[in-house]
């Protein structure tokens, strides 16, 4: 599938219908998941604040997914010099930054009533802040280099180096003592979360991932058009 979509013409034809379809699926999943979450009982310890989990955790998952996509696309861009892979990498970064900021802000709003503080420099929070800075740094680096090929190469190297942060985020709650709670979903032995919370969380998580997919495809299409416009303008100027 990836090989087939590596052809820009095939990608543009596929994404023309796939992006809106995925966007509609995302909207449906998010609405259903949040409605189920609104009807879930308050947690016996956290009370009503548990409802922040239904938007905080999916935002954090999607932020990591976005960085994985940025890293994967950067790999193909750097190794194979594939223009569509570079367009996809460039398109993933602002979305990843937005999802990471969403996770940080909602986490802070959850932490204040539960931990008594808006922020603490523990391993999980700090590594997610580093993820945000990696997205912003990637965008700033690309914007600072005028030559698009050099910008693509420098951005791809930074994105690939930053991949090391993903396992650090994932295992930060196991490797260090953190105020952030330990892993309760993707863990050996299965999730410890009650089904009444786990099901809506999984539905919203799938919705956020689908929303990222739809927006990513649309931004990649926009980047392909931008490059096409730049080529057309240059050819017109040379006539």
């Amino acid at each position, binding site marked *: 599938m990836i090989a087939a979509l590596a052809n820009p013409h095939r990608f543009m034809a596929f994404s023309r219908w796939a992006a809106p379809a995925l966007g509609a699926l995302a909207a449906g999943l998010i609405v259903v998941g949040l409605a189920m979450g609104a009807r879930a009982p308050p947690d016996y310890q956290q009370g009503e*604040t548990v409802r922040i989990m239904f938007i905080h955790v999916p935002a954090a998952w999607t932020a990591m997914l976005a960085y994985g996509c940025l890293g994967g696309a950067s790999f193909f861009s750097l190794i194979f010099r594939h223009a569509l892979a570079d367009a996809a990498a460039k398109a993933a970064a602002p979305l990843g930054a937005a999802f990471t900021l969403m996770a940080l802000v909602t986490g802070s709003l959850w932490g204040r009533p539960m931990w008594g503080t808006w922020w603490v420099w523990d391993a999980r929070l700090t590594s997610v802040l580093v993820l945000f800075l990696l997205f912003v740094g990637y965008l700033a680096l690309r914007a600072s280099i005028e030559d698009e090929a050099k910008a693509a190469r420098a951005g791809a190297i930074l994105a690939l180096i930053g991949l090391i942060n993903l396992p650090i985020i994932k295992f930060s709650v196991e490797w260090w003592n953190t105020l952030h709670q330990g892993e309760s979903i993707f863990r050996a032995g299965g999730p410890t979360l009650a089904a009444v919370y786990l099901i809506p969380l999984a539905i919203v998580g799938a919705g956020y991932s689908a929303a990222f997919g739809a927006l990513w495809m649309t931004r990649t*299409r926009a980047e392909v058009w931008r490059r096409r416009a730049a080529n*057309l303008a240059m050819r017109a100027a040379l006539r």
Partner: protein
Amino acid sequence: MNDFAAFAGRYGAYIWPAYGASALAFAWMIADTLARARRWRREVERLEGAGPIP
């Protein structure tokens, strides 16, 4: 209205801003993405309509 109030309870000052911030982030992502796509598609159409490109 009762559901609306019950959803937040006494932690409404934290829960509603969290949902509001998420909604704002989604609104920005959707608006910016669609605006970019529309802008560059129109630019390509305009340039392609200017005549055959050698």
